[in-house]
């Protein structure tokens, strides 16, 4: 028997859309934090279950993949998180899953790699997200860096400490002063507080129960890290733990946090078929490597690459969600592209300096917030989510707003962000 050219049909690339995203409240890492005593895998499970509740038209068996990121993949973040989370969330056993690691860009990578699968036709619907319980897994715990990094001077050992790389970035860009960083950080706190007041944050949080010895159960539904009302003078006197008389402080950096995020992505066709909302359309994405010693600059080449892939310029981007590992790292990005420190297109709801940065989870937080801003502002056509990554990388994803008049996506209906958990009860609620 011979095959005479009637092989599998040629693939066509399909639209990938962001259907919905949400997260747990972020907590401060450590014994006193709200998620102390709660397992990391339980955090991600709450997110997956809430996504399914909020999207009752999505049959759970139609989820083709569950990709979950964590930086430290041991203990309650081990055992192939995507699969364990799927099982623990009550998804059908037919739904597969895997675990992802690209440090801070874990959830972002979970989104882009499954998006690649959707575009290729391997998946119709996926769940992608990330979790980091930095209380249970202190940064770098269990890591065993190869001694060649040092002996062959492949990476300055100081580059393994993110705070040092932030100080290095201040060295590289003397125009970015501690004062600018502190001012940026205060603005981040103010913007988050405003977003909270305006009801833009809570609708995308899933409450998480917690129990501590001698205190009983409670349910957490708001973020723990924010310090609203922080002033420049509050920050001025903070210690610079990475360098004497340095510039990087706890006030102008993201903290150590616990939290999880998750999103539903789908092909444009599947979203239309299942009646799923379309909150964003994926335009392009890119990752880039930089010197590990100044890892914070990573988003610059990543963004240039993503813009090039998309055939767009920075001027086409109407909204920016940039992860704020450090103020200096955002400012270096803004300076590179000639954007003002207080440009209203940037991090409208504040950023990680205020809300926290549970490493591998943050990527989907950026997307969820961008999706809500798209809905609020149909005048914007394109937005980006970008973040720096340890060991010298950056990642950028460009999204299109389906609410914009010139939206190019052919299928699906522009989604409305839910303003509260869906009213539909999925479990026998009333007798």
């Amino acid at each position: 028997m011979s095959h005479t050219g009637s092989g599998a049909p040629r693939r066509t690339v399909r639209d990938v859309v962001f259907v919905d995203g949400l997260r747990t409240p972020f907590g401060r890492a450590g014994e006193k934090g709200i998620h102390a005593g709660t397992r990391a895998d339980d955090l991600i499970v709450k997110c997956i279950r809430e996504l399914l509740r909020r999207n009752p038209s999505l049959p759970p068996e139609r989820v083709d993949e569950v990709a979950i990121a964590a930086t430290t993949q041991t203990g309650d973040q081990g055992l192939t998180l995507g699969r364990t989370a799927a099982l623990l969330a009550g998804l059908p056993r037919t739904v597969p899953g895997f675990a992802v690691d690209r440090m801070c860009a874990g959830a972002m990578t979970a989104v882009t790699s499954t998006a690649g699968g959707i575009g290729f036709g391997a998946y119709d619907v996926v769940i992608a997200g990330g979790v980091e319980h930095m209380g249970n897994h202190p940064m770098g715990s269990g890591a065993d860096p190869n001694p060649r990094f040092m002996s062959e001077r492949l990476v300055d050992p100081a580059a393994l400490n993110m705070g040092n790389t932030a100080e290095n970035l201040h060295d590289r860009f003397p125009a970015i002063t501690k004062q600018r960083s502190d001012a940026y950080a205060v603005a981040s706190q103010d913007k988050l507080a405003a977003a909270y007041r305006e009801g833009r944050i809570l609708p995308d949080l899933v409450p998480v129960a917690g129990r501590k010895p001698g205190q009983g159960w409670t349910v957490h539904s708001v973020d723990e890290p924010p310090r609203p009302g922080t002033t420049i003078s509050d920050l001025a006197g903070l210690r610079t733990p990475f360098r004497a008389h340095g510039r990087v402080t706890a006030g102008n950096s993201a903290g150590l946090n616990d939290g999880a995020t998750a999103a539903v992505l789908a092909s444009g066709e599947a979203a239309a078929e299942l009646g799923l909302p379309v909150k964003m359309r994926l335009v392009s994405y890119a990752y880039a490597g930089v010197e590990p010693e100044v890892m914070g600059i990573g988003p610059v080449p990543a963004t240039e690459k993503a813009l090039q892939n998309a055939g767009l310029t920075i001027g086409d981007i109407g909204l920016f969600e940039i992860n704020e590992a450090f103020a200096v790292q955002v400012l270096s990005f803004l300076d590179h592209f000639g954007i003002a420190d207080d440009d209203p297109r940037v991090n409208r709801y504040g950023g990680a300096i205020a809300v926290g940065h549970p490493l591998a989870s943050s990527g989907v937080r950026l997307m969820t917030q961008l999706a809500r801003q798209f809905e609020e502002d149909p005048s914007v056509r394109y937005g980006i989510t970008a973040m720096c990554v340890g060991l010298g990388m950056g990642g950028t994803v460009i999204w299109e707003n389906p609410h914009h008049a010139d939206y190019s996506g052919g299928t699906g209906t522009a989604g409305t962000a839910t303003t509260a958990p869906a009213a539909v009860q999925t479990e026998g609620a009333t007798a």
Partner: protein
Amino acid sequence: MSAADFTGFASLFPNETVTHSYVQDIPLPAAPGAESPGTFALVTLDNGLDHGKPTTLGPNTLVELGTVLEGLRDRAARGEITGVGVTGKPYYLVAGADLSAVKSLEEREHGLHMAQLGHDVYATLANLGVPSFAFINGTALGGGLEIALQSTYRTVSTGAGALALPEALLGLVPGWGGVYLLPRLVGPENAVKVMIENPLSNNRTLSGPQAFDLGIADALFEPADFLEQSLAWAAKVISGELVPERANAVDPSHPDTAGRWAAAVAAGRKFVESKTSNAAPAPGKVLDLMEANRTMNQSESAAVECETLAGLMQTDEFRATVYAFLDLVQKRSKRPAGAPDRKLARPITKVGVVGAGLMAGQLALLFARQLKVPVVLTDIDQARVDKGVGYVHGEVDKLLAKKRISADAANRTKALVSGSVSKAAFTDADFVIEAVFEELSVKKQVFAELEAVVSADCILATNTSSLSVTAMAEDLQHPERLVGFHFFNPVAVMPLLEIVRAPRTDVAVLATAFELAKTLKKTGVLVKDAAAFVVNRILLRLMGEVTAAFDEGTPADAADSALKPMGLPMSPFTLLAMVGLPVAQHVQESLNTAFGDRFPVSANLHKLIDNGVKGLWETGPDGSVAIPDSTLSLMSFGTSPSTAGQVLRRTQDALAEEIGLMLDEGVVAGPEDIDLCMILGAGWPMFLGGITPYLDRVGASERVNGKRFLPPGVASGPAAG
């Protein structure tokens, strides 16, 4: 009153493991565009111990909970909170009242205090001024479930294990409002099911979904985010967005309700009669309360409930039940008296069963299912072997059809069970048990053949019910490897295993036998090698007395109903027919040989067996039950009839004598093991405490042996004065 008024009473219990009431304030989520429903105070009941130590409600626990709830009532009055919730530590809401504390209440007045304290606390919960919610996250028994019933609303987890009101079984009543609230919430029929039928049916409990279906809970959520979803649901109820409907709830004052109520109570009484012969007071009291409270308000009912509880707490039936339940079934069964260090136990990787009859098949199935090692059946010809293996495979198919096991598990179990006509199949077995005909020479022959093929370490076991294990071991090259392993029929159901130590049985062999029992999910009790061991010796002594009274001329009905006041699971003649007349007679003959006239062999039974009569009672075409004339004509009777009362007393005395002798002979370590055996091997009721607390209670022990089996206070009230 306030909970603090009971502080003095609570101080009588300095050793209570207190379940604390921790409060957390939680801001409730607002519906879109709506005002926040305010602040919710969530109480967590937590004893600070892991889930192996259930939370219970003792006096100090209740005082703390009551004080906390009073504080919340005051906060509600000040407008600080809009709702109150109660939930528990993982896997428990609360496992019920602290029974050891309740059992230790020496005076009726203290029992009354305990009952009133509970009502005081629960009344606060029910009258906080804001809605109260129970989030039933796990086990909720007795007073634990009553906390939920006293709340305004309830949610339950699909993962919640045991929900029940087991008081009727324990010798109490659901007297912290359960008996008043439950029939109103779920209807009188369902209430009788929960308060009467379930407790008296092997203490059956409800799962979360079953409780929801009955209407006990208003909402059902999955464990993964049970508390979060419960709280979100509570917020909607508080804001008025959601009004739970209760399809099964009834209004007791509605004209249609009276009839349903009375019918349900009557059905309950019939059920109690069938299960207990009304030998224990508590189940009837539950129904009395329910019958009376239809026309009462809640506080009137509460007063009667307290009086009833105070009375029942002083009964020996209650104390015997707590002894049976806590001291024996929960504690002693897990640490068998006299069992050697488990470290001495050897692994069992393959089991042999000699014989392929019904008992052998049941054993093979049990070993294959629980031990999950290869099991080989042997018999004298291929047809018998095939039949034995076929029986096991058929039973596995039945389990599969009932979805009790998966297809893979069925395949695995079937593949584990094979048959052979040659004992050579046992060469690599670690444990071989015989289930051949009850005849010493046959058994000795089997063991001689086994020793020729099995390995040096292989343990040999006999399932004999009446023969001497010592005699069986006599001619063995290695008598230390033989142990008695006596199961009860039906093997899959009955939890007892009498582990018989012959004089030369090796300690490692014994340790292995106990580990094996545990793996088989049976309770092993160590018994000395004495004819018929424990359960059969006592049952046959009892049946022998009743049969003798019948043979002497006592009317059948008087003889067979004489033991009704004991509330045994079945009457002696019914038991006789179930065991089978020939089997019973065979064991009786062994016992007669061993012990003489205490175990008389009935000539009448011989005649019935010879004529193929299967039992005394037969049901006629009109449904009436009688001994047919054809049976009676085979028998001859004496002329010295007894009354039922005389038969009862004679049986009590016989049991006291026999058990006294067994303890003197050292058949078991103590009366507690006798009781444990009768509860687990014969299904004797816990309100008898097994049997020795009952014999102490009715004075038989004193009459016959001049002393009690158990000191006062162990399974009975404290010593007088």
